[in-house]
């Protein structure tokens, strides 16, 4: 395990020198925190109409009425329900962090090694391939999970300060706890393994990042029906999502480990 940490530390020293990765790692979470907290802050402080309890310039979008009538929202203030639906949408963005940060880190690290031709001397050391793969994986997974959890925590704190209790309580709901504690780590693994697969074929960091960026598309695809009011996020949805991602990870890990062999890296990976 000691050697895994040697790899991790080196990766951090190397990768976070790149300002793009550093900015992405810091700005994205800040944006994702600011959006729900800011919007709820302004919604709560806007003048309310007497009937719906909603601000005058806020209407329930068509398609959302049926969601507002769901039993879990029975007896709740309409504004609180709208806020809950909006916060749920914004929280989806937090699932992009565990996809994007490890992807950028892993791509930068592996394609960077290929560009610098540093893989051969590295593979000649008494380092097992699993130690190298684990080091590269953890170098992306650890900061991604820390940033995800810290930014989610800050968003929860912000909502606790600006939102009414029933809205702020969403952050500690089983649904989002499942998403953050199970789904998010699974997504980081998906991101790293996809990065390894892409990096084995591509020699340009930007191209690899662009290809890796496509990984967020399924998540965006899921967000669209949620934003249109066609789908309500739920524990079941995240549980099914986690199971699918876990299965995907197993398949991807199998492929990734097959690709990440000493000889394959030296001979088959395009330079």
């Amino acid at each position, binding site marked *: 395990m000691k*050697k895994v940490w*040697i790899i991790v530390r*080196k990766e951090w*020293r*190397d990768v976070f*020198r*790149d300002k793009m990765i550093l900015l992405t790692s810091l700005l994205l979470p800040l944006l994702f925190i600011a959006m729900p907290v800011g919007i709820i802050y302004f919604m709560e402080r806007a003048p309310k109409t007497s009937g719906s309890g909603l601000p005058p310039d806020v209407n329930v979008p068509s398609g959302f009425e049926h969601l507002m009538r769901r039993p879990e929202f029975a007896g709740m203030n309409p504004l609180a329900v709208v806020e809950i639906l909006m916060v749920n949408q914004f929280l989806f963005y937090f699932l992009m962090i565990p996809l994007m940060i490890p992807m950028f880190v892993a791509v930068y690290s592996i394609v960077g090694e290929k560009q*610098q*031709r*540093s*893989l*051969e*001397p*590295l*593979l*000649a*050391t*008494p*380092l*097992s391939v699993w130690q190298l793969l684990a080091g590269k994986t953890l170098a992306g997974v650890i900061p991604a999970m820390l940033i995800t959890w810290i930014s989610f925590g800050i968003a929860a704190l912000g909502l606790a300060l600006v939102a009414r209790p029933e809205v702020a309580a969403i952050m500690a709901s089983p649904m989002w706890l499942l998403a953050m504690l199970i789904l998010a780590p699974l997504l980081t693994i998906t991101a790293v393994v996809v990065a390894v697969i892409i990096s084995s074929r591509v020699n340009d960091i930007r191209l690899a990042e662009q290809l890796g960026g496509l990984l967020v598309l399924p998540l965006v695809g899921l967000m669209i029906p949620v934003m249109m009011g066609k789908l309500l996020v739920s524990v079941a949805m995240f549980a099914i999502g986690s199971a699918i991602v876990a299965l995907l990870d197993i398949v991807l890990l199998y492929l990734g480990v097959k690709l990440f062999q*000493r*000889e394959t890296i*030296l*001979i088959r990976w395009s330079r």
Partner: protein
Amino acid sequence: MKKMILTKDLTRRFDGTVAVDRLNLEIAEGEIFGLLGPNGAGKTTTVRLLSCLIAPTSGEAIINGYKVGQDDMQIRRIVGILTESPGLYERLDAYTNLEFYANLYEVENAPKQVERYLNMLGLWERRKEAVARFSKGMKQKLAIARALIHEPKVLFLDEPTAALDPEASKVVRDFIEELKGEGRIIFLCTHNLDEAQRLCDRIGVLKTQLIAVDTPENLQRQMFGRRMLIRLRQLTPEMMAAVRSLNLATALEQADNQLILSLGDPETATPIIVRRLVESGGDILQVTELKHSLEEIYLNLIKEAQ
């Protein structure tokens, strides 16, 4: 002398193409061994096989008693490798580059060892500079230091002076020369024949198969025999006839006042010939053995192999 590297019919194929064919080598402790061969001859593949980066298709290789393909981790601990390109982390500084490898090799007191090598190579003052800002020669020196950081018993140097300007090449060559006599095997793959001749105790010529292996002197003897040059004040036809009558030379040439003789046993034949020339009235100015350059030997071997 203990044999540190032993290969027996070591073969590697890539998708049906034979890169290294039945390589048989024995390299002793402390030896500097040069592997020569044209591009695509299998030199890099040989280094990769012996440093456990790739597995042999057939045959076997033993490094310090450890078998390639079985004891790879032990072999990697005692082997250092300088790859064709330096392969350094360009964004990191020189110190961090060496420290990283020292830690991976579990070097005791890594900071001291890193400092030692940076000082030895004159890079200590620039240890905190990103490697990207180094010249090619400095990068190559740093890469050699990386290969040596764990004090390996076997050091593989794959084209250490390729792509370097003459000045940087000299710096690197001088450093390799300094490593001579430290008791480790230096396995040098090179195109530079002068470099091989200057540095290596023995030379192997590879063209997928090992065509020849010996000291440069022995290769020359095997290939061209031994030739002596005798320079006289004046070389007369009588003197030529006198030498010919001895029947000691397999070939005899005259060039101005110089006599060039191909001899099977120069140590015995030369004094007899010199005596006969003096008896014939010749004034001997110089007696010397003519040597073929390694380039001639190499080109001849490659030509024969084709």
